[in-house]
């Protein structure tokens, strides 16, 4: 079962990695690439967060976003990004 569609990371890969390293969401992301695809994690972020959280056993650090948001948060074409005038 696919969890991260962009990077095609499965539930099994994520749960096995999370179980082995008992890591935080960010590390789980870096180890599997889940959440690092072209949608910027818009689709899978809550699931990656939940899986990591079920294994690392820590109280969720409620005072911090566990997975960072990086701009641009919406797709921009290379033309617009490079300010290429038609």
């Amino acid at each position: 079962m696919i969890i991260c569609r962009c990077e095609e990371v499965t539930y099994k890969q994520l749960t096995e990695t999370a179980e082995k390293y008992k890591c935080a969401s960010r590390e789980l992301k870096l180890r599997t690439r889940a959440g690092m695809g072209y949608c910027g994690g818009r689709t899978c972020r809550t699931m990656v967060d939940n899986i990591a959280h079920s294994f690392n056993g820590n109280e969720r650090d409620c005072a911090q976003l566990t997975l960072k948001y990086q701009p641009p948060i919406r797709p921009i074409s290379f033309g617009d990004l490079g300010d290429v005038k038609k």
Partner: protein
Amino acid sequence: MSKVIIIGAGPAGLSAAITIAENGLEVLVLDEYMIAGGRLLGQLYEEPNGNWWNGIKESKQLYEKALDLGVKIQLHTAVSNLEKIDSSWVIYTATETYYTSHLLLATGATEAPLPIPGWTLPGVMSVGAAQVMTNVHRVKPGNRGVIIGVNVLSSAIAMELQLAGVQVACITLPKMSLVTKESGNPMNVMNSLLHVSHMAPSAFVKFGSKLMKIEFMKKMGITFFPKNGVKMWDIPIMLRKAVIEIYGDNEVEGVTMATISPTGEVIPGTEEKVQADFVCIAGGLYPLAELAAVAGCPFYHIEELGGYVPLHNERMETALEGLYVAGNITGIEGAKVAASQGVAAGLSIVHNNGTSNQEQNIKKAIQDIEHTRDNAFIQFHPAVKEGKQKLQHYWEEHLNTVKDMVGN
């Protein structure tokens, strides 16, 4: 530069724009969608008093009122980044850059997915997508659908689908996994339904009270919940069955369901196939706060508000100067609460800009939010008020830290 900028043309953003324009300030609203109204557009249901809440009509009224007051509303414009340079907020879209000293984020909420084997097949969509297709674009998502995830939103949308002549085969639970722990646990789901049912749209109330009346069911929890569900507007709501797979060769052809124990374990040998040509996934809502994160707002995870929310106070000010929030970005609630928060944010902006003293009006607007919340007919989390109190507590902590820093 004197212009106030609002990101999001939902009920919160539009109400704020109206309030600000009424007080004589220039306002620009940016929204990535092609119609103003946000998530209000898709809403259509009967309130307990018998009135119909028609989101398209409500949106149009807000939109036209804002335009009449001279508000500029620019649609098809996605904001991709934000930063603060000197004392102004810099807002980036694909083609343009805007500057303002007062920026309101009213970006609303988004849906959380529930993964189920087969959920990447064409024909599987979020329940909100089915709502927008049906109520906004007037396109049937299919002829017969299965909704996975039992909550206030999915039941409201099931009714909307049925009104549009789309058959809903059933509303049922997802197979339990680490991602669906809460939404796949029958006991959990039933408890949260019982808590919110007294507030929800009328037919939903009937469903809730039908259960409530049966005292032993409450006590025994889910054990005696009928295997084939309880019907609401002829749609079976199943709390003792779960979808274990969505099947189909190139697109959705149906789902495989199985009976589950009160704690959500699949009972082997009970699998059955249910035909459907579309499947809706209803994993619940969480605040869409990407821009607040990019801007550098502190965040808190508050379950009762739907997830991570940017720290803010009752006046809708964030911890960053000149940055405000209103609507579902501050926690998941109905459209009327979002609109009342928009008014409060608007007044704070007018006040902080030095245009006119709004102290009294702000106080009143804050009370108004409370009042709207108490009378809301749709409530997404039973303990939303406690969630708001937690946030207020974090805000006070934040103020003390700031004081200490200044003191040193």
